[in-house]
C-alpha cells in the first residue's frame, strides 16, 4: 500500500504541489481568520482573569450621593470609585510633531491606577522619572506613541503638559476606538491638572473633573438593562452620568476585528471550495489516465478499497502537509499582523502561543474533508473489473451528439475543432465554468473592496463610522449666539458647500439607551440612511437599524425620545446603519433636541467643500483660521485623514484587502494553472494524435485556448456579475449584527470588464505557457504517455 501511495506521489507531484499551495493559502487564511475572531472570546477570558468590572459610569457629583442612590440595588454586588480628569478635546504632539486632536482622552492618577483596573503592561520603563504618562495600547498604536517618547498635551482651559511615556498597557474598558481613552499620569501632574479642572465642573460642557463608578453586577443580569437603570437613577438624583456595560465595551474592542476575521474566513472558504472542486476534477482525470494501471493492480490482487485508500492517503497527506504549513505560516505571520493591524483596531494584546482549539479543527477538518472528497471522487472505480479496463479502458465519456459535423459545417478548421471540443465536453465545461466563476467572483469581490477602501472610500467610511466631512474646525464655546455665528461664517466662505454642527449625548429611544445625535442641518448628514430620509423638522428622527428593530418601529411610526428627564414624541423619517455604535443611535435636528429641553453645544464645526481635495481643504482651513482668529482652537483636514493611515479602521481593512488581493492573485494563478494542466492531461492523447497526423503545435495551442474561451467567458462574466450583484448583500449578511442592513458599497461596473480582462488574460497566458510543452514533446511521446 505504501509503495502504491509513493508511486502516486511521484507521478502526480506537479498537481499535488499545486494543491499543496492552495491548501497552504486556505489553511493560513482560515487560521488567521479564526485567530482574529478569537479576540472576541479572548476579551471575555481576559476580563474574567483580571476580574474586570461589568459596568462603568462617568459622573460629576458627590460620591456619597451616588452611594446612597445605588445602595438599594441588590444586583450590584460590589463597586468602587476612581477619580479622573477628562478634557473633552486635547491637542497632542509626540516628540514635537503635531498629531491630530484626541477627543475622549482622560487622566488617572498613577496612585489610583491599581484600583481603577488590573492593567496589563505590554511595555514599562521604571526608570522614567518626573512628569510621566502611560497610555493604553489603542492610543499608543494608533497615535504612534512609544515608550520614551515626549508627549505634549494642550488644552485651552487646562494648559499645556509634557510627559515622558513610561509604559503602554492594555485597558479592557477604556482602551478602544469607540470608548474614552485612559492614560495614567504621575501623581504630581495629576494633582496639578485636577486642581485646574475643578473650577469648571459646574458647567455641563466642561465636566473635566469626573469620577468613575465601577460596578460588579450579579451573574445572570442583562448588563445593558442594568447599566441603563443605574445611569437613570444617578441622573434622577441630579447628577450628570454616562455609563456603559462590558458588553458594549466588548463590541467596540472586537467589532472591526470580527469584520476582518469574516473577510479572511470567507476568502478561505471560497479557496477551499475551489480547491476541492479541482480535486474532484483532477482525481477523475487521473483515474482515466491511469485506468490500465488500476486494472493491472486489480488483476494482481489489489482490492478496490485498497486502490481507493491509496488515493485517499495520497491526497490526505497533501491536506495534512498543506494545512500544517498554512497553520505554521499563520503563527509565524500573526505577530506582524498583530502589531500593524489588530492592536490599533482592537486595543487588545494577543496572547501568544499555540491555540489547539483553532489549529487542530482546521488541521483535522481539512484532512477529513479531503478524505471525503477523494472518496467521492473515486466512485468511478468502485465497480471496476480488471479484465474490462485492461482491454477497453474506462468508458468515462459517452458522446451522444456529433456537434458541428465537419462535412456539414463550414469554417476555419481551428475554430471549428475548438468549438466542437467545447460542445462535446459538458462535464469539463461545468467544472471550468464553476472554477472560473469562483475565481472571477473572488477577483471582482477583491476589486470592489479595493475600490471602496483605497480609491473612493466615501461609502465604506460612512458604513463604518457614519457622517464624515471634509474638514473639522474646532471652536471655543462661549455662547450659543457665537457658536451659530461661527457656523454661519463658515457656511458663507468661498467654496464651502455645507457647514454644520453635529454633537451627541446619551439619551433614550423608548426604554432603550442610545446615542442621541443632533445637528444644525440634519439634511447635510451622510449618516448611512438606507431607508427613508434624514430628519429635517423638529419632530423628526432617524433611527439606527438595531434600535429600530428593538423598538419595532419603521418609517412613519412614532417613537418617544428622552434626554435627562424630558421626553417627546418624534416621527421616524429614516432608518440608519453604521458599524459605529452598532445601530443604537438616533439623529435629530437641534430644534428637535430643544424639544427635549437640551441646549445644543457644538465644539467643532463640520465642513464639506464644493470641490474637495487635500490641497483645497488645506487652503480652506488656513482661510478659516484667519477668519475665525482665536475662536478657532484647531482644525483638521479630515479629507486627508480619511484617506491616510490615520483612518485606522478603513486603513486596516484596506491592508487586509490588499493582502487578500495578493493571495487571491496567487490562488487564481495556481487554480487556473492546475485547471489547465488537468484539462491538458485529459486531452494529452488527443493532442498527440492530432500532432501525429500533421497539426502543428501552434494550431493545437490555439485550439486549446479557443476551446476554453467560451466557458471561461461565461464563468468570468457570471462570477464578476455575481460579485457586483451580491457584494452588498454579503456585507449585509456578514455584518448584520453590527447594524448593517443595506450596504451601499460603490460597485463600479468597470469591475466586470477589468475582471474579465484579468481572468481571461490569465487563462490565455497560462494556457499558452502550459501548452508550450506540446512543442517540446514529440507526437510519439504525447501518444505513448
Amino acid at each position, binding site marked *: 500500500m505504501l509503495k502504491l501511495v509513493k508511486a502516486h506521489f511521484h507521478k502526480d507531484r506537479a498537481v499535488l504541489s499545486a494543491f499543496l499551495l492552495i491548501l497552504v493559502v486556505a489553511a493560513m487564511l482560515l487560521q488567521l481568520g479564526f485567530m482574529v475572531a478569537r479576540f472576541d472570546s479572548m476579551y471575555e477570558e481576559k476580563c474574567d482573569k483580571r476580574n474586570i468590572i461589568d459596568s462603568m459610569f462617568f459622573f460629576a457629583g458627590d460620591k456619597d450621593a451616588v452611594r446612597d442612590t445605588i445602595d438599594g440595588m441588590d444586583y450590584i454586588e460590589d463597586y468602587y470609585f476612581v477619580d479622573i480628569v477628562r478634557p473633552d478635546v486635547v491637542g497632542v504632539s509626540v516628540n514635537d510633531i503635531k498629531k491630530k486632536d484626541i477627543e475622549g482622552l482622560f487622566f488617572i492618577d498613577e496612585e489610583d491606577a491599581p484600583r481603577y483596573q488590573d492593567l496589563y503592561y505590554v511595555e514599562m520603563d521604571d526608570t522614567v522619572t518626573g512628569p510621566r504618562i502611560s497610555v493604553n495600547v489603542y492610543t499608543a498604536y494608533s497615535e504612534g506613541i512609544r515608550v520614551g517618547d515626549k508627549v505634549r498635551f494642550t488644552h485651552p482651559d487646562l494648559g499645556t503638559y509634557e510627559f515622558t511615556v513610561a509604559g503602554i498597557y492594555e485597558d479592557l474598558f477604556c482602551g478602544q476606538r469607540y470608548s474614552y481613552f485612559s492614560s495614567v499620569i504621575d501623581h504630581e501632574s495629576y494633582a496639578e491638572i485636577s486642581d485646574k479642572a475643578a473650577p469648571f465642573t459646574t458647567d455641563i460642557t466642561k465636566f473635566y473633573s469626573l469620577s468613575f463608578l465601577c460596578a460588579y453586577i450579579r451573574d445572570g443580569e442583562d448588563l445593558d438593562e442594568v447599566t441603563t437603570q443605574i445611569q437613570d437613577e444617578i441622573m434622577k438624583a441630579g447628577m450628570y452620568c454616562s455609563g456603559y456595560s462590558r458588553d458594549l465595551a466588548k463590541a467596540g474592542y472586537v467589532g472591526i476585528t470580527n469584520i476582518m476575521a469574516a473577510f479572511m474566513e470567507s476568502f478561505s472558504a471560497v479557496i477551499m471550495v475551489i480547491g476541492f472542486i479541482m480535486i474532484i476534477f483532477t482525481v477523475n482525470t487521473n483515474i482515466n489516465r491511469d485506468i490500465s494501471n488500476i486494472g493491472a493492480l486489480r488483476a494482481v490482487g489489489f482490492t478496490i478499497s485498497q486502490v481507493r485508500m491509496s488515493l485517499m492517503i495520497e491526497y490526505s497527506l497533501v491536506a495534512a502537509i498543506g494545512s500544517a504549513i498554512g497553520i505554521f505560516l499563520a503563527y509565524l505571520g500573526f505577530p506582524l499582523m498583530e502589531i500593524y493591524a489588530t492592536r490599533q483596531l482592537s486595543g487588545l494584546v494577543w496572547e501568544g502561543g499555540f491555540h489547539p482549539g483553532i489549529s487542530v479543527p482546521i488541521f483535522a477538518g481539512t484532512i477529513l474533508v479531503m478524505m471525503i472528497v477523494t472518496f467521492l471522487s473515486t466512485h468511478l472505480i468502485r465497480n471496476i473489473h480488471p479484465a474490462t479496463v485492461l482491454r477497453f479502458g474506462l468508458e468515462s*465519456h459517452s*458522446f451522444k451528439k456529433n456537434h458541428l459535423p465537419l*462535412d456539414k459545417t463550414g469554417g476555419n478548421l481551428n475554430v471549428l475543432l475548438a468549438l*466542437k471540443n467545447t460542445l462535446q465536453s459538458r462535464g469539463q465545461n461545468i467544472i471550468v465554468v464553476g472554477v472560473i466563476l469562483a475565481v472571477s467572483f473572488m477577483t471582482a469581490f477583491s476589486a470592489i473592496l479595493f475600490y471602496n477602501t483605497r480609491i473612493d472610500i466615501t461609502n465604506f467610511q460612512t458604513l463604518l463610522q457614519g457622517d464624515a466631512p471634509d474638514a473639522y474646525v474646532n471652536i471655543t464655546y462661549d455662547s450659543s449666539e457665537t457658536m451659530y455665528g461661527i457656523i454661519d461664517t463658515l457656511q458663507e466662505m468661498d467654496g464651502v458647500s455645507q457647514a454644520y454642527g453635529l454633537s451627541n449625548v446619551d439619551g433614550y429611544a423608548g426604554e432603550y439607551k442610545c446615542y442621541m445625535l443632533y445637528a444644525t442641518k440634519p439634511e447635510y448628514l451622510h449618516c448611512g440612511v438606507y431607508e427613508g430620509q434624514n430628519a429635517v423638522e423638529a419632530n423628526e428622527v432617524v433611527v439606527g437599524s438595531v434600535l429600530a428593530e428593538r423598538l419595532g418601529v419603521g418609517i412613519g411610526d412614532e417613537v418617544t425620545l428622552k434626554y435627562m428627564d424630558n421626553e417627546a414624541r418624534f416621527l421616524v423619517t429614516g432608518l440608519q446603519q453604521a458599524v459605529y455604535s452598532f445601530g443604537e443611535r438616533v439623529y435629530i435636528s437641534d430644534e428637535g433636541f430643544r424639544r427635549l429641553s437640551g441646549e445644543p453645544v457644538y465644539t467643532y464645526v463640520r465642513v464639506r467643500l464644493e470641490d474637495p481635495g487635500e490641497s483645497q481643504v488645506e487652503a480652506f482651513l488656513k482661510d478659516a483660521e484667519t477668519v475665525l482668529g482665536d475662536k478657532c482652537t484647531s482644525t483638521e483636514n479630515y479629507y486627508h485623514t480619511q484617506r491616510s493611515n490615520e483612518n485606522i479602521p478603513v486603513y486596516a481593512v484596506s491592508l487586509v484587502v490588499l493582502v487578500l488581493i495578493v493571495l487571491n492573485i496567487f490562488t487564481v494563478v495556481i487554480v487556473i494553472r492546475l485547471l489547465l494542466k488537468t484539462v491538458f492531461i485529459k486531452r494529452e492523447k*488527443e493532442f498527440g494524435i492530432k500532432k501525429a*497526423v500533421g497539426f502543428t503545435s*501552434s494550431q493545437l495551442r490555439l485550439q486549446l485556448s479557443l476551446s476554453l474561451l467560451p466557458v471561461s467567458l461565461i464563468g468570468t462574466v457570471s462570477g464578476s456579475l455575481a460579485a457586483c450583484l451580491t457584494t452588498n448583500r454579503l456585507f449585509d449578511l456578514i455584518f448584520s449584527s453590527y447594524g448593517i442592513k443595506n450596504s451601499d458599497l460603490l460597485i463600479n461596473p468597470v469591475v466586470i470588464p477589468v475582471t474579465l480582462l484579468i481572468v481571461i488574460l490569465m487563462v490565455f497566458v497560462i494556457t499558452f505557457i502550459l501548452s508550450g510543452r506540446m512543442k517540446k514533446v514529440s507526437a510519439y511521446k504525447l*501518444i505513448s504517455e
Partner: protein
Amino acid sequence: MNKEVIIKTEKLSKSFSVGGKQQHVIKNLDMEIYKGDFTVIMGSSGAGKSTLLYALSGMDKPTLGSISYSGKEITSMNDDQLAVFRRKHCGFVFQQVHLVDSMSIMDNAISTGMLTGQKQKTLKDKACKMFERVGLEKDLWNKFPAQLSGGEAQRAAMVRAVINDPDVVFADEPTGALNSAGVKAVLDVLTDINRTGQSVVMVTHDITSARRANRIIYLRDGGIMGECNLGEYVSGDKERHRKVKSFLEEMGW
C-alpha cells in the same frame, strides 16, 4: 531493377534516458525505404522497431544521424515543419487506433484532410468513397470511435491515414489488437493501398501480416540483422509463407 529511394537514413541513432541511464535503442543505422514498397519491420521486443518507425515518419527526432525523404533532410526540421511534412507525405495507422474519440470517424478523416487545404465538400466525397472501399457501412460514418468494433475503428483510421494521399503509410502493429477477421480486413486494405502505388512501412510481430510485404527488415539490438525480399503478394502463396518462416527462423525469431 533500380528502385527509387523514398526514405534514407544515415548513421541513425536514438537513445532514451531511463532512470538516469542512456539506453541506445537504434545504433548507427543505415537503411533505405523504396517507393511503392510494402516494407515490414520485424524484430524481437525491444529491438527498436517502433522507435525506428516513428523516427522515419518524423514523429520523433533521432538522437544522431540523419533521415532524408526523397532526398530532403528532415532531421533538421523544427516541430512545426515536421508537422507540415507529416500532413503532406505521411499517413499513420496505430495498434491502439488512436482516432480522436470526441470526433466522429467522418470528422477524424475530414479534419486531417482540411490540414492540407482541401475543400470540405471534396473531402467528404473522398472520405465516403474510402469508407466504402474499406468496407465501412454508411450508418457508421457519423459514429464515434468508441461506438465501433476494433476492426471497424482500425479501418476508419486507415481512411484518415490515406485521406491526404500520402506517399508513405506508416503502420505500427495495426493488427495487434484485432481478431482474425479484423486482421484480414486491415491487411487487405493496406495491400490495396500499396497496390495503388503508395509505400507502406509496417511494424509487426505477426507472420501472417509479414507475408503481405515485399520486403522484410529484421532488427536486433537497434541494428539491421537481415532482410528478406519477397515478390508481389498473392493470396494463398504457400512458398511465400515458407520463405518468410525460414527467414524468421534464421533470424532467431
